[in-house]
């Protein structure tokens, strides 16, 4: 252990006793711009729930228009290369194109797949 400490002390750019070095290093972050004065922003699930109102309230979308893939003639709604969220439940299959799940009015879809009520959102 002591050998390791000696080794670190020789190559360290901060000379002095280990305790002095620690003091120097621990206050170094105060010199960085914007640090040391502001309260750190809370993130993650531990942060308090503070919703911000940013856009108009959306109308609920209940059971959106659905077509079978074999009946779909035009590529107006979905192209071959478009990304979709696919779900398979008890022999029922459905795809929700991501390009349709964006925008101000249709981000949240309430739907049924078979008997199962599902919520699709991206």
């Amino acid at each position, binding site marked *: 252990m002591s050998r390791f400490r000696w080794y670190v002390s020789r190559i360290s750019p901060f000379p002095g006793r280990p305790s002095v070095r620690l003091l120097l290093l621990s206050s170094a972050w105060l010199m960085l711009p914007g640090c040391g004065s502001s309260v750190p922003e809370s993130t993650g699930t531990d942060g308090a729930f503070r919703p911000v109102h940013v856009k108009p309230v959306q109308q609920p979308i209940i059971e959106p228009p659905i077509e079978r893939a074999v009946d779909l003639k035009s590529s107006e709604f979905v192209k071959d290369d*478009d990304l979709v*969220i696919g779900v398979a439940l008890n022999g029922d299959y*459905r795809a*929700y194109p991501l*390009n349709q799940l964006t925008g101000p009015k249709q981000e949240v879809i309430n739907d049924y797949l078979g008997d199962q009520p599902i919520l699709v959102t991206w």
Partner: protein
Amino acid sequence: MYDRQQQDQVLTLFGSGKTWQRSLILEDQSSGSLWSQLLGKAMQGKRQGQTLPIIASVLTDWKTWKEKNPLTSVMTLPPMTSFYDNECYQGRMGKFLIGMRKAGESPRAWRFDQLINQPILNDQYAGEPVVVVFWEATGSATVFDRQMEGETLLFEPHEMGFTDQQSGSVWDPLTGVAISGPRQGQQLAMRTTIPSFSEPWERFHNDTEYWIVDLPLFFSSQIVENVGIRCEQVSRGHIMERYRQSIKLKTIPAGQKPEDLFEKRR
């Protein structure tokens, strides 16, 4: 993709117009409770603390999905953007991930820019063996159980999907169905996962364990940097020199025997 059936009723949710940490907040029509989109949890209101169960879903492109599931139906609302096609990963692999969470465990996430180095990954989450399958062409990542009939399978890449070492069967990356080999027709259980952008995932699950491809050389140099030692100082020769100095190895003057270096005590 959530199950909106709660014990007492089927919820109808809509966008509340609010965001929390730049992520959407949903509101349910009957009670007016506010739900976090990414956590699937009611944060405020009568239903606070309740969660929506996740339903297994996959992110892939339309061509692949309808080829694998010809009976599929598709939502036909007017598209609002044309950003999301299988080109949208180009140069942005690090922005996408697939995450898993379980009560009482740290969440786990696999970023696409890491999975691209190891598309078939035999991993373990919450003590259960799983395989993470990444298909670069369609940008789909799926997680399956590796347990089958009491056997823990080990998987390898295969041009048609992936194959298990035990029986050599070939499995489909999207559905987990064995398409050929002795296990043909059997299906691996798909785990519920959450495809997400990396940034919001990080904001909402800041105790996430990330899987990172094993690159020992790169990471050892990172660790060396982190403890404040510059890389070029840690060459083998340098360490040997320091070591010799530290043990004060005496050089033997001419005409002296090595034995003379040691003190003779009586």
